[in-house]
């Protein structure tokens, strides 16, 4: 793949992952840094085809990453998720995703219960998708 094609592919991948994790589009600076991080480090290439499939079919990547991380904490998808998280955490617009700034115990307990339900969903869906698309 040529340089431009590779960059565009990484940006597309980052955009899809970011939307799945944070629910909105990433800014251009974050995309640029995501690509630079790929130039800087050697990512686990064993999972490159899995990632291609996940992006191509727009699968529930959060569930898939969860199951893959439970099996191997240094898998290719988790590495990419980690990079995105670190990059996002440095930006002011993401601070609300990481830091609690309002004391509201009721809302927060509800959110925690919702995340517990979501964890069960991820566990089931992730296992299914890995089998269905032969991603293991």
């Amino acid at each position, binding site marked *: 793949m040529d340089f431009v094609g590779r960059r565009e592919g990484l940006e597309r991948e980052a955009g899809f992952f970011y939307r799945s*994790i944070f629910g909105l589009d990433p800014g251009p600076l974050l995309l640029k840094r995501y690509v630079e991080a790929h130039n800087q480090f050697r990512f686990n290439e064993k999972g490159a085809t899995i990632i291609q499939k996940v992006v191509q079919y727009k699968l529930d990547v959060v569930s898939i990453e969860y199951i893959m991380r439970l099996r191997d904490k240094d898998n290719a998808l988790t590495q990419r998720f980690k990079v995105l998280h670190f990059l996002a955490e440095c930006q002011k617009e993401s601070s609300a995703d*990481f830091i*609690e700034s309002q004391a509201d115990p009721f809302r927060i307990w509800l959110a925690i219960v919702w995340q517990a339900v979501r964890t069960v969903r991820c566990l089931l869906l992730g296992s299914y998708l890995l089998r269905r698309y032969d991603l293991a």
Partner: protein
Amino acid sequence: MRDFIIVGSGPAGAAAALQLAGKDVLMIDAGFDAPGVASDFRGSLHRLRCTHSDLFPHLIGDRFESLENIFATNKINLKLKSPYMRYIIEGSQGVAPVRSEEFHGAISLAKGGLANGWGGGAYRFTDRDLERFPISYADLNKYYDLLTDHIGISGRNDDLVPWFHFDPNLQEPIKLSSLAKKFLQRYERNRLLFVGHNVYVGMPRLAVLTREHRGRAPYNYDNLEFFKSRNPAIYTPAYTIDRLIAEGYLDYRSGWLVESFEETDEAVKVRAKNLQTAQSRTFSARKLLLGAGALSTARIVLASRKDYKTCLPVLDNPMSCIFLCNFTHVGQELERSSCSLGQLNIICEGEPGIGTIQITLYTTSGPLRSDIIFDLPLPVVAGRALLKHMSPAILLAVCFHPAAMPATGSIRLGADGALEIEGNSTKLEIAEQKLIGLFRKIGYFSHSSLVQYLPFGSSLHVAGMLPMTERPSRYYECDADGRLGGDGNIHVIDGACFSSLPAKNLTFTIMANAMRIAERALRSL
């Protein structure tokens, strides 16, 4: 020819230089200095995160320094990985390489050594801690007092005095987070329960100022300990070195890496390599004080004898981390003014086969959330949300276990100059189980599945390669004066000469012992 050459500017070298101030001393050091910090990276971490549009250069680094752990097998300590802290371990793998699958420790070539990134724990060893040493508390007491005056130690004479000693010169302890304050209050209400389990809680002794001391400002609760070194309130040996240089008491040569020494009847000759030009040079002195840091000191000693066969012991405090949650704090706003320093100390006594263990409680407000999220057994979105909502309710209990001979680790010098380190951290679960049960009774919950046992070397408390003994039986042991082989003019002054490792930060005792050895060396000059 000089009277003394001191190798290294870490806690040992700085303390020895302080003791020998005004004498004919040359300090040889790699001496990497702290980088300048951008002017817009000021104020508290909380405020910066909420107001600064882009903290990438400060938290991650333009060379993506903070992301290296994602791809590394041997992870860098969280306190050493960010861009402004990286100088502490920068370059060491190039000129002083370590080869190991299991070892997660670090070597520093920075002025001030690894203590540029320490947590400030300044603990006196008791006679029980020194049981295996050929010295007693009485031998160190005077130097502990001198250092307390020199550094400024905060803390309190509380229930932990039997383990930390009474000290009338302590500054007020640091302000506790509301979560730690509640923990202490509940301990005080349930003291009998804790004491019945041989568990005691109190304030940590920290080399952190809570009021001005010798021109250094008190701690400002900016909570940047993971991202910025040289906070004037938090002591680093570099302050002592800078002061001694400024006052004309120390001839300091940075940019030199000591490779070996040779002892003759007249002098000790030290061979060092210039890190810029790669040229070698020999320095001579009547006495040599080796304080390059335990691993580097061991390397120099082995290289001086061209010994590529002998395995030396390595002691390391086994470590574990327990996440504790107080559910009544879930949903509270994150405290804006906080710190990543130790909040409370807990002593757990008398577990059979384990000995005394020490626990330090920390808040989780210091490191990046991304450093923790992926360790949680949850989908990333749930992990992030949970950490966000529950951070104000979580304390991290870091447990240090003692280590004694026979050591669980060993080092050998490879023919290519790399240190080969082997070892494993023993997993001791009994104390952790007991503590989880006890903490639950005061409303701080955890589960054994949430306990993390850290790999060998993670504590960065590495020692014991050239241990002090009453009568050294071989060259690789020191006498009570730190003299290698019990004879001659080579004194080991850093953690390499420790005979055991109690479950305490050893830095303060390295300093006191280095001062003691320096004074003994001066007398025998």
